[in-house]
């Protein structure tokens, strides 16, 4: 290739890279007809372009960024005594911004650390002194300065962590803002500037990057920082163009290096910002600093109306005056500018900022994975009850908050009120987490009514919390009838800003007064969240806010603080359990301990929370003391009764439905077929597609049911939520594997090389039944083993997957001498299938520890070794008498004795006795292992006795083999069931089961091939014979 050819390629590339896929294809086709080589070159270049970030990652990481990771570590270490630095969240010309936890005040903050090369040139003391002046500013539209300092050579300052987006992001997205929004933002920025000017602080760097939009309101950041830098910097800084102002927004006098700047410099910059909000670009857009400054000095500001004709004339005139070259020609103060804009009598529709757009966090997909968000736009919905409004359901909308340092109360107040009002008379409240997920509006009647309609709430409460002079705050609330959109009542309370929690209580009392006028309430006891400590309560509320956003580490921190501050805080314990249960969260205690503790403290809570705390604690009790006995049975009945009660009270509550689905899945006593479980989780998603917990199980179950397309849609929806979730990685890999256009082997290997170890089991599980003969689950687990061969678990896991797919010999190799539970389980399966030589099996079984001692019983029965069964039985029978045995241990011992008796009868070929004993097993079969095998045996006995329908009923429940799903026995179960249904004439069921066997064992060992051939032939026969009546009575 020569330079001329490269030019040709490049020009075409530059053009095509901007086009969408369809247009590109068209152009490529055209080019290809005349110059196929050119087309090929462009195509490779386009592919490389799409992957350039990834392909160049290592070289760019080595050279380009100022080793962000190292910088992060340095900052983290040097601030560690006061702040727990969590992540880098932004980077600009002067500083890097980190999110951190302020350890002393228990709050999340943003720390800006000046770039080291800038720090070098600054007088630290001077800078810190300058910035302290700024710390005196307190205003609702100014982002407060909490702290500043110098450590390890780094200059930093600390601010509240602002939620929301910058005005820059908003302009980038919308280009031109609605007039009303632009004017409101300008007015709010002007308020802030005016207040600062009264305190002799000039901002000197007003620009869209320094305006945050929080719940639609403007908050100005970085007050006086630029000034502090210029004051403290030596000449190099001032003159290097490194900091100080931003050319596009800088007044001519500032650009000229004047040291006598006054508020009129800010007037000019605000003019530029307003201009850009209206026109979509600043008045002097140019590519180089010099060009901008030159134009500013010489050209008059362009008319905004040439860029946007609808801008009213008075606004245009005000802008012209704000952008005057000479300060004396400008407005003398920002307030004058505001007055002019207001006098322009622009009446924005409703005067409200358009709804805050939820920031969908960028989906961090690894490497080569393709973005999958396409379908989700159509898919997201919250609440399935639109149109069905319950007059007794009340939604408390997050409060609008104006005033820095109060942000947490936006949701915190709705948490408290929702809890206080839940269960008052006939009223129930919508859980705040659900409200928050559905909410993207503002505290106004229209948004509140829409939300109420979506959530099925007949009443809505909305309001605002405003900092009102000194340290006091004002809280107003409105009670709205959703259907008629009429206001039932309004109220206002005031208090010191430290007492917002008490404000919430007085507000709740007044709201109850309002509710009492429309419904008979009777005697109402106001429910609290269960802590009398205001600090514990605040920590808990912050925890709730992080929890809802799945920021589990921060949530755990705050719940932990709440517990530290109030050791009787039941809800905090309960939430902590939920967080600890979350994958990837490291908790000081296992989840069930937190849940049990919460259960013990469960008093005085509102109905919904009280039921959920109870359900979680029963679940924890089941988990910790499970045994096949009547006590467990009773606990499980209580668990489901509690959940069903909650479900009746709060129908279609996704969180309650999720708990029910989880309970069904994890307690297979009520074990259902995978179809039914899948239905349960799908229903939760249907109720609220933005709620992430159900997705993982839904995807796994869809995988098992070989519903690949629906599973991929679930993954897309899940990933589009941008969950900061341990499953993001595994679900992305799963999607890549399921992608019909496929990933290459090399790409797959790359994924496996970089995936975290916990990912592998999660990825392999849904793939285990995958009909594809490439058997991806096996590849996944092999990759897992190659990454972690020191551990026994991956080897056992590989053996399990191999055995399930019928690679029995390889499985035997993999399992070796089993030392862990799963390995022993697989080994037992293999022995039962005759793969292990009997001598070897007997020898290995003799070394099984007590915990697994009953595992070989079916095998001993099959080889007629009744002596070993009797020995084992005797050992268990003796242990029952011991008084050191716990209730659960005794339950297990009893069950094992019964199991031994059952197999002894079988070994004697006394089938009538065996069947009698089998029916005495508890009706529920939580199988630790091999117990599905007992049920299979029982089904076979029933079949042999001609009791086909009973057998079918039993087999239809599924093998419920939840502890280690997918062992060969599961396939045999399906084969047995297929044969049975064929005999019973249930053709569809038979076909589905035969197909399952043929798919799963498509590559199985020769010894299993006759069964595969049988399944293929049978499903073929049933499929073709379908129209000609059923085939029955085939001998088998």
């Amino acid at each position, binding site marked *: 290739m020569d330079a001329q050819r490269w030019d040709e390629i490049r020009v075409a590339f530059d053009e095509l890279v901007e086009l969408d896929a369809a247009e590109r294809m068209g152009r490529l086709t055209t080019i290809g007809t005349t110059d196929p080589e050119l087309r090929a070159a462009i195509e490779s270049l386009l592919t490389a372009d799409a992957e350039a970030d990834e392909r160049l990652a290592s*070289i760019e990481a*080595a*050279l380009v960024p*100022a080793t962000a990771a190292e910088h992060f570590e340095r900052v983290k270490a040097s601030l560690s005594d006061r702040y727990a630095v969590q992540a880098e969240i932004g980077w600009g010309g002067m500083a890097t911004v980190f999110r951190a936890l302020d350890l002393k005040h228990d709050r999340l903050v943003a720390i800006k650390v000046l770039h080291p*090369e800038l720090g070098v040139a600054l007088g630290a003391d001077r800078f810190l002194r300058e910035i302290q002046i700024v710390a005196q500013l307190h205003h609702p539209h100014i982002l407060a300065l909490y702290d500043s300092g110098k450590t390890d050579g780094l200059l930093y300052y600390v601010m509240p962590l602002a939620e929301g987006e910058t005005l820059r992001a908003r302009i980038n997205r919308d280009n031109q803002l609605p007039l009303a929004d632009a004017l409101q933002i300008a007015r709010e920025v002007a308020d802030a500037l005016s207040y600062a000017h009264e305190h002799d602080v000039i901002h000197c760097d007003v620009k869209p990057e320094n305006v945050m939009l929080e719940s639609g309101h403007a908050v100005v950041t970085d007050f006086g920082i630029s000034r502090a830098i210029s004051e403290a910097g030596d000449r*190099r800084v001032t003159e290097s163009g490194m900091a100080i102002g931003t050319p596009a927004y800088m007044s001519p006098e500032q650009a000229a290096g004047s040291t006598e700047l006054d508020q009129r410099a800010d007037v000019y910059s605000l003019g530029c910002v307003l201009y850009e909000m209206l026109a979509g670009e600043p008045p002097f857009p140019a590519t180089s600093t*010099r060009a901008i400054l030159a134009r500013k000095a010489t050209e008059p500001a362009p008319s905004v109306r040439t860029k946007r004709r609808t801008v009213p004339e008075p606004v245009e005139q005000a802008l012209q005056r704000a952008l005057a070259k000479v300060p004396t020609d400008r407005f003398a103060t920002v307030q004058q500018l505001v007055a002019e804009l207001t006098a322009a009598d622009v009446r924005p529709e409703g005067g409200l900022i358009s709804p805050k757009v939820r920031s969908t966090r960028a989906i961090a997909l690894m490497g080569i994975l393709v973005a999958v968000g396409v379908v989700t736009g159509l898919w997201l919905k919250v609440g399935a009850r639109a149109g069905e409004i319950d007059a007794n359901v009340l939604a408390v909308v997050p409060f609008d908050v104006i005033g820095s340092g109060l942000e947490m109360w936006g949701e915190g107040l709705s948490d408290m009120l929702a809890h206080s009002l839940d269960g008052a008379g006939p009223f129930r409240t919508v859980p705040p987490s659900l409200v928050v997920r559905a909410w993207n509006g503002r505290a106004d009647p229209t948004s509140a009514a829409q939300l109420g309609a979506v959530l099925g709430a007949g009443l809505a409460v909305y309001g605002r919390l405003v900092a009102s002079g000194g340290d006091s705050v004002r809280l107003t609330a409105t009670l709205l009838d959703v259907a008629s959109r009429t206001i039932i009542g309004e109220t206002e309370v005031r208090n010191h800003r430290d007492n917002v929690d008490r404000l919430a209580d007085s507000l709740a009392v007044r709201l109850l007064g309002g509710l009492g006028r429309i419904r008979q309430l009777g005697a109402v006891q106001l429910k609290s969240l269960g802590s009398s400590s205001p600090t514990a309560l605040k920590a808990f509320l912050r925890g709730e806010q992080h929890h809802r956003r799945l920021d589990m580490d921060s949530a755990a921190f705050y719940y932990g603080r709440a517990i530290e501050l109030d050791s009787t805080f039941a809800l905090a314990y309960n939430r902590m359990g939920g967080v600890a249960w979350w994958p990837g969260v490291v908790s000081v205690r296992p989840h069930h301990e937190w849940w049990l503790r919460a259960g013990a403290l469960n008093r005085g809570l509102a109905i919904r929370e009280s039921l959920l705390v109870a359900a979680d604690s029963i679940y924890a009790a089941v988990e910790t003391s499970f045994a096949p006995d009547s006590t467990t049975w009773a606990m499980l009945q209580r668990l489901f009764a509690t959940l069903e009660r909650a479900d009746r009270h709060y129908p279609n509550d996704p969180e309650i439905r999720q708990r029910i689905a989880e309970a069904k899945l994890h307690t297979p006593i009520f074990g259902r077929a995978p179809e039914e479980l899948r239905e349960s989780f799908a229903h939760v998603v249907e109720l609220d597609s933005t709620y992430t917990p159900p997705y993982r199980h839904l995807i796994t179950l869809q995988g098992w049911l070989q519903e690949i397309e629906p599973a991929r849609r679930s993954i897309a929806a899940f990933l589009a939520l941008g969950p900061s979730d341990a499953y993001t990685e595994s679900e992305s890999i799963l999607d890549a594997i399921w992608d019909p256009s496929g990933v290459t082997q090399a790409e797959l290997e790359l994924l496996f090389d970089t995936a975290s170890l916990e990912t592998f089991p999660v990825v392999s599980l849904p793939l285990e039944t995958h009909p594809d003969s490439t058997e991806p689950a096996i590849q996944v687990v092999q990759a897992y083993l190659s990454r972690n061969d020191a551990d026994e678990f991956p080897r056992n896991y590989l053996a399990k997957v191999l055995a399930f797919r019928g690679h029995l010999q390889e499985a035997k190799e993999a399992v070796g001498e089993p030392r862990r539970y799963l390995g022993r389980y697989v080994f037992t399966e293999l022995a039962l299938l005759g793969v292990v030589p009997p001598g070897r099996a007997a020898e290995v079984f003799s070394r099984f520890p007590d915990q697994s001692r009953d595992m070989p019983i079916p095998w001993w029965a099959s080889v007629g070794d009744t002596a070993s069964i009797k020995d084992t039985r005797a050992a268990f029978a003796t242990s029952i008498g011991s008084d050191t045995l716990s209730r659960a241990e005794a339950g297990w011992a009893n069950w094992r004795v019964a199991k031994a008796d059952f197999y002894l009868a079988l070994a004697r070929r006394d089938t009538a006795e065996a069947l009698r004993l089998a029916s005495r097993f508890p009706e529920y079969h939580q199988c630790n292992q091999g117990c599905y095998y007992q049920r299979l045996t029982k089904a076979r006995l029933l079949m042999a006795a001609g009791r086909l329908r009973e057998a079918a009923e039993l087999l239809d429940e599924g093998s419920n083999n939840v502890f280690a799903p997918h062992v060969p026995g599961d396939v045999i179960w399906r084969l047995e069931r297929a044969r049975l249904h064929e005999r019973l004439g249930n053709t569809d069921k038979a076909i589905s089961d035969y197909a399952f066997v043929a798919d799963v064992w498509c590559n199985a060992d020769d010894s299993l091939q006759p069964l595969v051939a049988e399944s293929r032939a049978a499903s073929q026969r049933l499929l073709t014979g379908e129209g000609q009546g059923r085939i029955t009575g085939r001998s088998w």
Partner: protein
Amino acid sequence: MPSAPSEVTRLLKQWSAGDQHARDQLIPLVYDELRRLAHQRLGRAPRESTLSTTALVHETYVRLVEAPQVDLPDRAHFLALASRIMRNLLVDRARARSAAKRGGGVTPLELNESLWVSDEDLDAVTGLDEALKRLEALSSRQSRLVEHRYFGGLSLQESAVALGVSLATAKRDLRSARAWLALELGGEPLR
């Protein structure tokens, strides 16, 4: 010893005004300062073996340039020059290292003192350097643009100024250059 900032500034201005001789005089000054800084950094924190070249270039700038009215073009030219020097330094370093590994050749002392990049990174640098030479033959502007970005950490705007092109052109150039480079370094070069 670093040179007097005023001298560097004077040379920079002369060079900006078109005096190539000034550029020649600037080079050794920047070269020395870059090496000195790298060495000093290592002395302070020996574990920082992947010290950012970009940060070094910028710090060199802050230390060397003290001038009234140094504006963007001068700054950009300085950084562009420093990025070329940084590239040479790194490539020399990589060659010396691989020669030493083979047992032949003598490692120049001054290079030994300034090892601020790991072995793997040095290998990558050699590959990159060769790719950039090939790109030079196709489009010297793009080759220099990548050099600015990779070895000097120049912003797109600074690069555009140093190369005398518009920001939009620089953006386009960088995009196709990166795609080209991805193919080249990935072992599937365009033919």
